Every structure is written in C-alpha cells, then in structure tokens.
C-alpha cells in the first residue's frame, strides 16, 4: 500500500483492461442466445432423442435369431400389419406355436410360459412410439410397397431392437413428398435384404405410376 494520502491514490480507477468488458458484453449478448439455440437445436433434435432407443424387453427376444437366422417372415408374428393400422405385437400363443416344443424349458422363456398359463400379457415395451396425435397406418404403407426396412432398419440383424430413424414429421414428409426411392414391389415388403435390380428411382417411378401412389401431404392425412 502506498503511504501517501493523496486524493488520487485513494480513488478507485478501473484498470485499463476493463475497457474490454464492453465488447465482451456484446459478444455475450449475441453469442449467449446463439449458443443456447444451438444447444437446444442439437440436443433436442429427434436425431439425438429418438434414434438409438433400445429398451430392455421383459423377454430377451432376438429378432436377429428369429427374423434373421431362422428367416421368419415379419408377418408370421406381426400378422395384422397388412390389414390394420397397427402392427400388433403377437399374442403369447404365437410364441408358443414353436416354443411349446422347441426350448420348452428355457429359462429365458419362463415369462412366456407363465403368460401362456395365466393369460396375463407379456409387458413388451414399445420401441417405435409415435405421438398420440399421429395416425400412422401400417397397412396403407405395407400394401403400397414401402418395405419394413425403410422405417425400422435391419431388424433381422438386431439382438435388441432399436430405433434407427427419427420418425419425426420432417422425416415422414421427406418420403411423402418423394416416395419413389423407397417403393418396392409389394411382394418384397418384408424382405430386409431386398435390392432393386435397377435404379431405385426409376423402379419407384414405374411402381408409382402403375399403382397410382400419390401420398398426400395435407395435415389431415396424419393428424385428425
């Protein structure tokens, strides 16, 4: 501390570097909202929140084994998919079609046997869950030749099913505006590894004309 008691030395003087505070404040006022917006946009995006959701199921059912290795058609279990809006999770009876005889004493299947004996449903966890204000219709898509794999990914390779697409509105609209690259002949809808023998866009264009596929982008197509 200086020992002389002059007026000047007692007065507080902002140090020279404090002049930087004014531009710094401007940077903060512009950069702060930008930062928060970017954070919300990136963190709140369906790509962050929805893709990769892979809940633990009550029974460790492997699609990779059943749909992949054993080659079961999707419709063996999800039999309502062609005729109903909802691709139903099968009743326990469907599991027991085989598991009454195959792996009939497996520890992993204890819950299935219990459900079959008591009639209580197996509490499967829904993976692809659209908001309740969306009225998606499976049969409308499957029968027009939109393959399962387009929305659900390679389920036949998944030990545990996870969501691979955002299922967001923008994603739906992408295809509703231009469905041609995602169309296939309806007999191949469940075939996960199907590849068109030609340019997918050209094939899609042809299928679209043949079957008169003109997906609507009106609000009430999906929201009622």
């Amino acid at each position, binding site marked *: 501390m200086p020992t002389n008691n002059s007026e000047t030395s007692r007065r507080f003087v902002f140090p020279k*570097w404090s002049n*930087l505070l004014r531009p710094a404040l401007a940077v903060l006022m512009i950069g702060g909202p930008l*930062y928060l917006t*970017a*954070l919300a946009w*990136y*963190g*709140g995006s369906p*790509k*962050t*929140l*929805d*893709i*990769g*959701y*892979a*809940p*633990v199921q009550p029974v460790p059912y492997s699609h990779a084994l059943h749909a992949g*290795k*054993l*080659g*079961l*058609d999707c*419709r*063996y279990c999800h*039999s309502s998919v062609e005729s*109903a*809006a*909802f691709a*139903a*999770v099968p009743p326990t*009876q*469907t599991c*027991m*079609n*085989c598991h*009454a*005889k*195959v*792996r*009939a004493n497996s520890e992993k299947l204890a819950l299935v046997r219990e459900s079959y004996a008591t*009639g*209580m*449903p197996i*509490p499967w966890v829904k993976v692809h869950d659209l*908001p*309740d*204000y969306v009225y998606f219709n499976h049969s409308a898509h499957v029968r027009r030749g939109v393959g399962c794999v387009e929305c659900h990914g390679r389920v036949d390779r998944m030990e*545990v099913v*996870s969501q691979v697409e955002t299922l967001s509105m923008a994603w739906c609209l992408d295809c509703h505006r231009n469905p041609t690259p995602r169309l296939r002949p309806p*007999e191949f809808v469940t075939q996960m590894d199907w590849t068109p023998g030609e340019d997918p866009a050209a094939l899609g264009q042809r299928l679209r004309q043949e079957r008169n596929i003109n997906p609507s982008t009106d609000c009430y197509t999906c929201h009622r």
Partner: protein
Amino acid sequence: MPRWIVYALVILAVASLLPFAFIARARGAKADRTRLRPIQNMGTQQKYLPQSENPLFADSRAMRPAVEGAVRRGTVIDDGAFARGRAADGQFVAEFPVAVNRALLLRGQERYNIYCSPCHGLTGAGDGLVSRRADALQEGTWVPPLTFHGDQVRGRPVGHIFNTITHGIRNMPAYGSQIDPDERWAIVAYVRALQRSQSATVTDVPPDLRAGLR
C-alpha cells in the same frame, strides 16, 4: 488483465463445448431409458390405443379379449365345407370349395411362405429352418413335419389338409386363429401345386419351354 480471468475464460470456453460433446456421444449410442420429451405437445393423451395399458383391469389390457362365443366382424359363419373342410356327412371334402385360379395360388404361395415354410420348407419337404434348428437342438420333443411329397400326404383330400391347418396335428399348432379360412384354402391350393411340382415329369412342361430345361 489478471491471470485468473484469463484462466476462467479459457475454462468457460472449454466447458461450453462439453454439452455438445455429451450430445454427440448420446447421438451415436443406444439408450434403454425412456426418451426425453422436452416438448410434450399432447404426444401422450388420455386415450387408449391398440395394445395399450389400462390399469382398471387385472390383466391391464385396454383391448378386452373377446367374450367367449363372440363373433368377430367378417367371420364366416358357416359350418360347411368352406369353414370346416368337411362335407355334411363329416367326411373331408376332396374338391376345393373355392375357385382355384392363379390369384388364389399366388396368395397361397405368399401365405405359405409366411406361416408354413419356417417348418415345412419352401418346397414342402419338411426341411424348414425352424424344423432344422429344432432337430439340431436334439431336445427329444420335436417331431419333424412330414414331407408333402410322400404318398401319405399326397393321398389326403384337400379338406384334410385344410383341417390340419385349422386344428394342428402332432407338433403343429392350430393356425385357425392366425389364418382366415379363405387364406387357408389358398395355402391348400399352393400345397397341391407344390406336390405337383415336386413330382412333375417332362410332359408337364409346356412344349415350347422344354428346350430351356437342362
């Protein structure tokens, strides 16, 4: 500028990137937890959707199982050949109660490949992948399906095959609840087609296509 302010600013700048790093990691990873829904927008409504839960009932099914004796809309109410595969005298019918045409066969092929081929194989030889795996497990509970191409199955009237699909036999569960009668008949027609194809001779091939055979 004091050193500590410089340090604080550097730390702040680095820390401000951390949320992005965490989000980037979350993007690539799988998560088994319930998803965050920052903006609900009535995404979850107080209504019951197919296969949703209703705690009011002991089994928590919002969709109530049909009362015994209830008849589903579109159910064929018929105890004749079409619905049972049996004639009035209880014998299996030998003639199809539906018109057999190309459309029926194609439908039958599609349904057969979905519901039957896992065990019976794509040609009906009894070598489906599920059957093969069940055999390989050697649990002693599996009876492999009969081939369709032996005399035993070839000699069966169509009503018998229809009845087997409906009610099952040995290992085979009843598929009556999974496959509607018209689809069952389509499958029977396709099984007949498979049987013919597996015991075909060169005379069954149209003359103009025989040259293409090796």
